[in-house]
């Protein structure tokens, strides 16, 4: 093992250790309001990043898909409002993820022949249609939301015992992260990356481009579905207002802050987002009606705008830029050149 690799593994181990011990390190408030929320928001964002990094597809449908998972679970399980069919919490959650995956395959089939900015627009339209659907169909959305959704025993009550949901979200995050890295190395993942780089050539080689993109979208929807389940357990409720265009943009902002092309960035972006969300309300100065504790969205928009204008690679992009500059100053390190992932896509 080279020293660089050893260093990487040591830091990964340390990070996991800190994560595992987090309930005894941080206060319950931090654990629940910042860390757990960052974990499930990170999963939602990584479903977007997975598609953009390996498939070249910027999808804005992820929140629509996680809404489908959340509402399916809330209607099948035990809750106040909706159909509350009283299924076992795990079975309801599984059905929710399955529903998100099925709709993901459907949405993917619809959008898979479109590329770039068209893909972005079509997926945004699909996500907003899902939002309006749940807003209109009150028998499924329980007249303004379904409350008191039951969680499995392993999770317990997320308000009185936040550790349960924290560990479940942590395990889910680690598994999803590892799972994506694994999928990327399978023949399917490699073909997907080939399609990202040159769809015409892959088609000429005999690959079914639309099918690969549709399946990738299904995988993304599966991940988004898990985020949807966790978000409902976290909030113990699901409502159309929470899965609207605002949340769609929040997840996009998290992915962009994290860097759109780096899986790790999803959780880094989500952590920054939740910290901003929590603390900006106390330190944001008031300036007439323009700025104040209630103007978190304005702050978020400005941060988003600055990131997009100054560093399209997000925080990870800034870090990599610094590292490249450092390498230029200090000379290349010994050992193989490390892959820094694809450059941020600059349009055609």
């Amino acid at each position: 093992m080279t020293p660089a690799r050893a260093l990487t593994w040591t830091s990964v181990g340390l990070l996991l250790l800190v994560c595992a011990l987090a309930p005894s390190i941080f206060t319950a408030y931090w654990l629940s309001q910042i860390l757990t929320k960052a974990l499930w928001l990170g999963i939602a964002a990584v479903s977007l990043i997975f598609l953009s990094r390996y498939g070249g597809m910027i999808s804005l449908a992820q929140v629509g898909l996680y809404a489908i998972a959340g509402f399916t679970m809330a209607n099948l399980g035990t809750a106040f409002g909706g159909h509350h069919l009283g299924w076992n919490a795990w079975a309801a959650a599984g059905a929710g993820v399955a529903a998100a995956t099925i709709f993901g395959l459907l949405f993917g089939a619809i959008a898979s022949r479109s590329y770039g900015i068209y893909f972005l627009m079509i997926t945004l339209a699909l996500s907003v249609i899902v939002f309006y659907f749940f807003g209109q169909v009150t028998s499924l959305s329980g007249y303004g939301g379904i409350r008191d959704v039951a969680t499995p025993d392993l999770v317990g009550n997320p308000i009185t015992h936040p550790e349960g949901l924290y560990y479940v979200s942590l395990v889910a995050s680690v598994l999803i992260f590892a799972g994506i890295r694994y999928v990327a190395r399978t023949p399917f993942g490699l073909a997907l990356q080939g399609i990202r780089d040159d769809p015409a050539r892959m088609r000429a080689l005999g690959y079914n481009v639309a099918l690969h993109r549709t399946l990738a979208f299904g995988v993304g929807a599966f991940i988004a579905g898990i985020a949807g389940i966790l978000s409902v357990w976290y909030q113990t409720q699901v409502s159309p207002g929470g899965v609207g265009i605002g949340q769609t943009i929040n997840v996009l902002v998290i992915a962009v802050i994290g860097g759109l092309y780096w899986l790790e960035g999803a959780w880094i972006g989500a952590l920054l987002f939740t910290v901003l969300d929590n603390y900006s309300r106390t330190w944001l100065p008031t300036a007439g009606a323009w700025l104040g504790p209630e103007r978190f969205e304005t702050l978020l928009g400005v941060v988003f705008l600055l990131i997009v204008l100054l560093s399209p690679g997000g925080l990870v992009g800034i870090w990599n830029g610094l590292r490249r500059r450092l390498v230029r100053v200090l000379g290349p390190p010994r050992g193989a050149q490390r892959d820094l992932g694809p450059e941020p896509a600059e349009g055609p």
Partner: protein
Amino acid sequence: MNQRDLRLPSRLLLALLAAAVLGWVAYKGAQNGAQFVTVSLNGITLAALYFVVAAGFTLIFGLMRVVNMAHGSLYLLAGYLAFTTQQSWFGVSSNLLFGHTVSVSSWIVPLVFATVVIGVVGVAMQQVLLRWNQGQDLRQALITIALSVILADQMLAHFGGIAQSIQQPTSWPNSVPVLGTHYGFFRLVIVVGAALVIGALLWAVIRRTRFGMIIRAGVDDRAMVSALGINVQVVFAGAFLIGALLAGFGGVLGGTMIAVQPGADAKFLLNSLIVVIIGGMGSLGGAAIGSLALGLVNAYADVYLTFGSTDLTNYSILLTFILVVVMLAVRPLGLFGRPA
């Protein structure tokens, strides 16, 4: 499977679907003629409003490949500006007392003011934030999304969350007789009239003037136009100005016809997206057909989605979804869309 093998059955299926929809509308319409006229006019007037807004969206995209995600925000901002100026400059109250009059100028002046301000805001946006990112379409879309987040929050802060309405002049009649029933004068005459005039003007400008010729050439080959010595940046700014003016004009029409309220920005962004997904990006004729399709589907679905005693009008959004799905399945680039 070959794409071509799929074409015939899918077309047959589509024709059947279209026939079923038309048959259902005809059946429902025959039951109640007056209602049919009203519902159809609802659809057409909505379509007229969608067209005004979406024409600006598609124009900007067609020439510059910029998807202006803040288009809905410009629309809503125009509504608020007109509403505020109507109140503060002309003392028009939002809850009209009986006998209170609203002069024609107290509607026209806010309309012109709001439209011009939005035009300026649009050009400023393009010059300051988008111009130096030319060609990076994803980055430009993200920039406009960031702007839409900021604008939505600021509008909430400054204008509140309550739905308001811009008052139309009281000297205008409330309704006009059409085909044995009555229909709102503003919606039918002003909104549809404005859409027709704007459509004709845009068509004339794009087809008959030198500026339009440059725009059409720019849509096809920007580099070549630039190489011929035409200042493309000026043309871009001009196109963005027109696009923003249309969003602003549509915002005042919509604010009078429907309401100015938070959420209208997302709604009209979605409408514009669907219109151009159906009609094809950058095509004026496509925007007209897409608006008509969306407006009519919305209007009919809101009323005619009842089967016997089963009321499915709650599910009307699904028809919009089906409209988008069918269009993308048949033509991924929309009716008149061409590959970038």
